[in-house]
């Protein structure tokens, strides 16, 4: 008699379960692939391309049609005029053709040699166009009675044009110039330094302020819920609303903060908080701390409330002072959540774009890597360079994430 064996490999039930799992995950995977993975690949592709903002619109034939000269009596000889232009100053267009239907009652007197006319259908093969090419095509015609009775003008039937232009996004021109440009000397190191300053101090500051707030609210009293809700405001409000509120509060000309400081005699002249060099960076970092301390506060408070209070009672009996209790009991207990928060917030602060963009637009020495993407791509209109910065960001992120996944234990549950 054979011993009963556990089934080898995956049985039909397990297979069905796996199939169901993939079925349930399929929509998510597709969506994420389309919007995350594909753009990431695109970013790598674009970063090696000499693309400008203007290149996004493919070059096309611009065509205007009108009739010149009198066409009011039988026998008049006006010209039908086609004004043609290549919309791009950089890209050629190859194989340009136009076609049009002439209205009834216009007899063509003379035809350009590149054009053919069959019945009333005109078609012209105009060959290849250089960038910025312009041409005017005149077709002299004689007016007949039918034209006058119908009242149809030549421009009433729209002329169509064709032509192929190579799109810089899909052709095979590659360049390393984007990277050369962004790594160019001092500017890059300044951006990197600003990013590091902002990220490190923003993260640590938000953690410490959050810890302080959590210590305050880690006891039950009347109004604790209200205060907890209140302290979350900065995080919950739309960033655009609070950023503009800060800008108005600290406005150098008519801001209340400056008025207050001047009246209190702290400063003689108004301070341009978001416009001076070292100060602007400090201010955006302070804004970051202000906006994100609620998050660390919430996490730390949640962890604190799960610490057993017996331990503190025992320490009290043993004569530990409040500061000793904090340092030797609370801090070790909170270290786990603090390190997780630090790592996650570090990455998120590194990725932050909106705040600085709204507060200073990256001016006055506050240009971080993320703001640089926007700056290069849209302000300087060099999409390729913007993509190159994005690739650098992604590289940093990958490094952080590998470190992060190695370091973080699953027990913290994040």
């Amino acid at each position: 008699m054979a011993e009963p064996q556990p089934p080898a490999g995956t049985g039909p039930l397990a297979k069905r379960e796996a199939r169901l799992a993939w079925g349930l995950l399929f929509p998510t995977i597709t969506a994420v692939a389309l919007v995350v993975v594909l753009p990431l690949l695109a970013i790598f592709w674009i970063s090696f391309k000499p693309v400008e903002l203007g290149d996004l619109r493919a070059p096309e034939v611009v065509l205007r049609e009108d009739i010149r000269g009198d066409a009011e009596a039988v026998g008049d000889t006006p010209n039908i005029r086609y004004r043609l232009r290549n919309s791009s100053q950089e890209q050629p267009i190859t194989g340009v053709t136009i076609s049009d239907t002439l209205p009834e009652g216009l007899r063509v007197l003379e035809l350009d040699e590149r054009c053919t006319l069959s019945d009333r259908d005109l078609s012209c093969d105009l060959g290849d166009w250089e960038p910025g090419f312009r041409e005017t095509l005149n077709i002299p015609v004689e007016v007949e009675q039918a034209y006058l009775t119908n009242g149809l003008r030549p421009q009433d039937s729209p002329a169509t044009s064709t032509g192929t232009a190579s799109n810089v996004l899909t052709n095979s021109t590659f360049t390393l110039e984007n990277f050369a440009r962004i790594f160019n000397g001092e500017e890059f190191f300044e951006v990197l330094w600003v990013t590091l300053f902002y990220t490190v101090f923003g993260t640590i500051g938000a953690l410490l302020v959050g810890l302080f707030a959590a210590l305050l609210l880690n006891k039950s009293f009347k109004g604790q819920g209200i205060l907890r809700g209140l302290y979350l405001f900065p995080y919950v409000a739309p960033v655009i609303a609070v950023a503009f509120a800060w800008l108005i509060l600290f406005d150098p000309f008519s801001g209340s903060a400056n008025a207050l400081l001047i009246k209190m005699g702290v400063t003689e002249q108004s301070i341009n908080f978001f416009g001076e060099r070292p100060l602007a960076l400090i201010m955006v970092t302070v804004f970051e701390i202000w906006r994100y301390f609620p998050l660390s506060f919430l996490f730390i408070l949640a962890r604190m409330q799960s610490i057993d209070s017996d331990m503190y009672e025992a320490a009290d009996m043993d004569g530990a002072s409040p500061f000793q209790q904090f340092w030797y009991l609370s801090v070790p207990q909170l270290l786990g959540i603090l390190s997780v928060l630090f790592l996650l917030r570090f990455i998120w602060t590194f990725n932050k774009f909106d705040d600085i963009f709204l507060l200073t637009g990256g001016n006055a020495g506050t240009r971080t890597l993320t703001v640089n993407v926007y700056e290069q791509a849209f302000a300087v209109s060099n999409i390729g360079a913007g993509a190159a910065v994005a690739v650098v960001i992604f590289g940093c992120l990958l490094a952080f994430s590998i470190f992060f996944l190695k370091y973080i234990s699953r027990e913290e549950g994040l």
Partner: protein
Amino acid sequence: MIRKGYITAPLLGALWMVVLSVTIAVALSFATGDPFRPWIRGSLFWGAIAAIGAAEMAGPKSKGAQWGVLLALIGVSLTDYGPILRGAETGMVATVMCAVAVGVLFVWSIRQILTDVHLGQLTRHEFEAAVIRFLTGFGYIFFTAIVLIPFYVMVMTSLKNQSELMQNPLDFSIDLSKGTELLRSYDELFTQFNFGTYLMNSFFISVLTVFITLAFAIPGAYAVARLRFRGQAAFSRSILLIYMVPMIVLALPIYIAFSMTGLRNSFWGIVMIYPVTTIPVALYMLQGYFRGLPSEVEEAGLMDGLTRLAVIWKITLPLSLPALASVSLYVFMIAWNEFLLAFMLLDDPSKFTLTRGIASLNSSEIPRQHLMAGAVIATVPIMALFLGLERFMTKGLTAGSVKG
């Protein structure tokens, strides 16, 4: 050395008086528009003296002495040598108010801080407890001030007009006799700047985002949390990774793709893109919750002949309603507050979301009370929702929102 009562008490008292005088001066300046100026050296001096009085006589028998300290403080504050100095034009009422505030608040709070502090040698316990009470008091004032001031400025600026703002940027008092005229900025935003449309756009986009996100995330989260399949661990890790890709990196190719396909500047383009940014968060939050549900209930359902999908629909979802509420709120908040994509992808004023609409108000031609009124319009709904459903929101925030 510092643990001697006769050093601790005046030290804490002096520092506390500085904290209080700065707070009161700032509060009164913002409330009345008159200059109130904390005099730091004076505050240190009077605080130290008053604290000795309060500490020495703290206790049930010292009612009279407290009144003495209180009246003395009010008296000093009325002179030009008190903790807070006033401008020449400050009225009588404000001066008296200021003095009374200084006296009453100081005596009341320093008595709390210096409970058990006497003038002799203090134990470490007594000393540290007093310091902690001092820091606590400071913390409450500090946090409440930094949170409230920007919002206060936002609301009050939106109720003023250009000339009032220019005349005295410090004056946030509002003239109630103007009645509905106060709300003029709001009226103009809704009648001339299409804010009604923006509000509706933002609302519909956010609600649609919530539904689409849930439709994708619930099955996905269930699969990751409950079903066994190859690559499960790798998958749940990659959710975390995707969660960390910065939006600005993706925004550039999305902008290009949308420009080329004509999805830019369309309502549906935004509705397509928002859920994808929130699905990883929602999936992450939900799978954590699903893992915490007892699997026995579901197995019982399976034994009774329900299919997996029916189990999800009839057992898992009803059990996870609180988590769904948290996730929905959180996703709604992300979509409502989203700025970057709206800013890049929308150019046509009739399709703006609220955040995009506010960004368009930021020009030198539009007065800033309009900008602030716009900010208030965007903030109030999300705050109301948040305060109303604070329980879910807090839970949702802790569950998955290190993002932001």
